[in-house]
């Protein structure tokens, strides 16, 4: 279908954009890459009075290394992240995940901020942020604030962002040297949203991080499974126990793409594979 009528503004500055949001409240919608929003408008699932196009806010795009962290601007396109040498070198797990996000034409336009604000539980970036303990920087009428990713995703397509706020970017703390990783996902066709996906990090201290996508209303950090793995030093027995723990920790959705039981099964299989890949990288 065609989208319903709306007004359109393309602010040249962040202040102008915030001002438009303050004036129009929940009648306004930010437009970034448009790769989720435009589809929802064409389906007429939304009918905002005005679209505030933030594509002119160039300063919100870019990837930078700062002390002990990598900062990624909200307007950074998926394709820029996918092809960033800095990301490939510092956070190979994120680089691997980006290869699974949609198709080139979508990656050319879609943005990091749009993906996080849209909060699709099957999207890669939200789960990667949970894995990497990201901090989100947000601007609003009262100034800027920081939100831990672990407080950000509040439900399927729901976040802690206010209607009058703009996500500026994210900060990702550096990983200890020698951290091993694994990423596995399953989708029916390359570039489709995954039925389930798993990312793991194994730090040299033995600490394990495990994040999943597509298996609950939000991305999940599987804390119980992480504890099993750390306690059992990634032994085969520990992996088995972690998979048990993980299957109990998640509540997958039943939808037309897959049943909840199948997703729960898949989460375990993919976790086992991702851990095997991480173990191989440790050796």
């Amino acid at each position, binding site marked *: 279908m065609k989208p319903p009528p709306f007004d359109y503004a393309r602010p040249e500055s962040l202040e102008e954009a915030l001002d438009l949001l303050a004036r129009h409240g929940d009648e306004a919608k930010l437009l970034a890459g448009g790769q989720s929003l435009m589809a929802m408008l064409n*389906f007429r699932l939304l009918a905002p009075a005005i679209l505030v196009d933030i594509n002119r806010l160039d300063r919100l795009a870019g990837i930078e290394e700062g002390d002990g962290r990598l900062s990624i601007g909200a307007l950074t396109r998926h394709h820029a992240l996918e092809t960033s040498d800095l990301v490939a070198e510092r956070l190979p797990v994120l680089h691997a995940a980006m290869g699974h996000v949609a198709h080139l034409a979508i990656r050319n336009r879609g943005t990091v901020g749009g993906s996080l604000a849209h909060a699709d539980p099957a999207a890669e970036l939200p789960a990667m942020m949970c894995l990497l303990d990201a901090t989100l920087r947000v601007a609003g009428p009262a100034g800027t604030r920081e939100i831990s990713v672990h407080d950000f995703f509040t439900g399927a397509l729901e976040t802690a962002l206010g209607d009058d706020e703009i996500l500026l970017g994210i900060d990702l703390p550096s990983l200890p040297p020698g951290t091993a990783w694994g990423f596995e996902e399953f989708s029916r066709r390359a570039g489709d949203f995954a039925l389930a996906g798993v990312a793991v990090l194994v730090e040299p201290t033995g600490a394990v991080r495990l994040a999943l996508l597509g298996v609950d209303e939000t991305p999940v950090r599987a804390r119980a499974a992480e504890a099993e793995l750390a306690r059992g030093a990634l032994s085969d027995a520990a992996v088995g126990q972690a998979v048990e723990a993980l299957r109990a920790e998640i509540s997958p959705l039943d939808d037309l793409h897959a049943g909840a039981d199948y997703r729960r099964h898949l989460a375990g299989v993919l976790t086992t594979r991702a851990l095997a890949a991480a173990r191989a990288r440790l050796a």
Partner: protein
Amino acid sequence: MSGRHTITVTVNGRAYTREVAPRLLLADFLREELGLTGTHVGCEHGICGACTVLIDGDSARSCLTLAVQCDGAEVGTIEGLGRVADLGRLQQAFREHHALQCGFCTAGMLITVTDLLAKYPLASEADIREGLSGNLCRCTGYENIVRAVQDLVAAREADPA
């Protein structure tokens, strides 16, 4: 800000100035305002790839882009790749390999292949298939499209220009 916007968009090298409603999709701008009906419209939600065009050199879905967003942009469509009497390189490869039947997907395929060839090594058949996965074809079974792209990759290696 409200009401219609005057935009100037360069399409295949020619500048067009038009007044548009904000909700007008780029696909409909090209087809209905400019009469460039080579760009096709299938699903209108980003899935089928039929409407894929180049925006400032990068492939993008014209059903997920507003015409008003393209003020000042350079858009490339199938009409810019060649003419019936003078087919472009990609079109020629598709023709030689019978990489189209009804032709509904072809414009989007060719634009996608233009961008894939510019950005990726496409070293294996699997890479080519993954690159094409965002463009649906209901006729060919993809085999001949993959062959055509394999030829184009080989030609690119022989002559990088």
